[in-house]
């Protein structure tokens, strides 16, 4: 942000807008795999994220009524809560999960749709994802959809009315980074809705690469939660996202096969 002020010739960045709401941060974070709720809270605060994903599961019936729950440490008044359909392998289960989430969050319609195909890869089941997206859009949900990095499917999901398309960089929780940047570029070229890389980021440079490609944001969970120091990694990711965005706005130099001297040859005295 400060770079923009120092160099007024740089174009102002457009904010990320989802479902009519503007966001300063382009980093979206999950809330799973942390040691405890306090670590979750601190890491999310350090990440600067304004949108956090949550899962919907059976309430533990034996729990102590005074035990804090996730939404006590991440109040919906402060964060945009993005319920996901993680663990769903059918369109039916995903739709059911979204409806429960809407009830849970007092009519909030923003959801992250993910329908998985296989436990080993957690790869999206595209046919079930399309079926679920169709039902959810008709039912008034604002669907941010996790999908493969297939440009045609991404376009189809957009045409169906999904408000954001979220291709994977690599399998969920793998930390393998952006495996197919060319596909992400193709998706970006055609998209009129925000495109966010969801899944696959392992470290800060992966997030930067996604942003340098022109993505509108990145959603991650494991890369922060399973880092040696999650709070520090959350901050690293915040900076990585900002750096990648700035680099994309600035426009990188062209790649050249051979060297091009940075110091002038004129005026040499040897």
């Amino acid at each position, binding site marked *: 942000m400060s770079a923009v002020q120092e160099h007024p010739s740089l174009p102002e960045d457009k904010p990320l807008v989802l479902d009519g709401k503007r966001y300063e941060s382009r980093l979206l974070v*999950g*809330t*799973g*795999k*942390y040691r405890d709720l306090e670590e*979750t809270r601190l890491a999310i605060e350090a990440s600067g994220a304004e949108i956090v*994903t*949550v*899962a*919907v*599961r*059976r*309430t533990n*019936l034996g729990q102590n*009524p005074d035990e804090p*729950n*996730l*939404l006590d440490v991440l109040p919906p008044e402060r964060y945009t*809560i993005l*319920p*996901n359909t*993680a663990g769903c392998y059918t369109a039916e289960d995903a739709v*059911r999960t979204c*409806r*429960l*989430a809407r*009830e*849970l*969050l*007092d009519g909030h319609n923003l959801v992250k749709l993910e329908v998985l195909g296989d436990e080993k890869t957690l790869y999206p089941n595209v046919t079930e994802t399309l079926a679920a997206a169709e039902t959810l859009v008709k039912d008034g949900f604002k669907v941010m959809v996790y999908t493969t990095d297939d440009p045609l499917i991404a376009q189809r999901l957009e045409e169906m009315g999904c408000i954001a398309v979220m291709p994977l960089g690599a399998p*969920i*929780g793998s930390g393998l980074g952006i495996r197919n940047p060319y596909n992400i570029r193709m998706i970006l070229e055609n998209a009129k809705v925000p495109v966010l890389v969801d*899944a696959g980021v392992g470290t800060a440079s992966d997030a930067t690469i996604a942003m340098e490609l022109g993505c509108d944001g990145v*959603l*991650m*969970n*494991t890369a922060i939660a399973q880092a040696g120091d999650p709070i520090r990694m959350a901050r690293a990711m915040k900076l990585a996202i900002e750096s990648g965005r700035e680099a994309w706005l600035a426009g990188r130099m062209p790649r050249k096969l051979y060297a091009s001297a940075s110091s002038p040859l004129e005026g040499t005295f040897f």
Partner: protein
Amino acid sequence: MQVIVNGEPMTLADASSVADLLNQLTLTGRRIAVEVNLEIVPRSQHDQHRLREGDRVEVVGAIGGG
């Protein structure tokens, strides 16, 4: 009467409402959502909605996830 709550059998007084069930589970006022036989029972109807023998109830909440 017996109902199934989150997959577990549970005995309730006859004609108990969803609100009675939540009270018994000390979940009153918690941020949860309730489904009975795959149909959501909105919060505004917890008092009125009477449970019946064999109903399958799901009580869900938000937990950490990506």
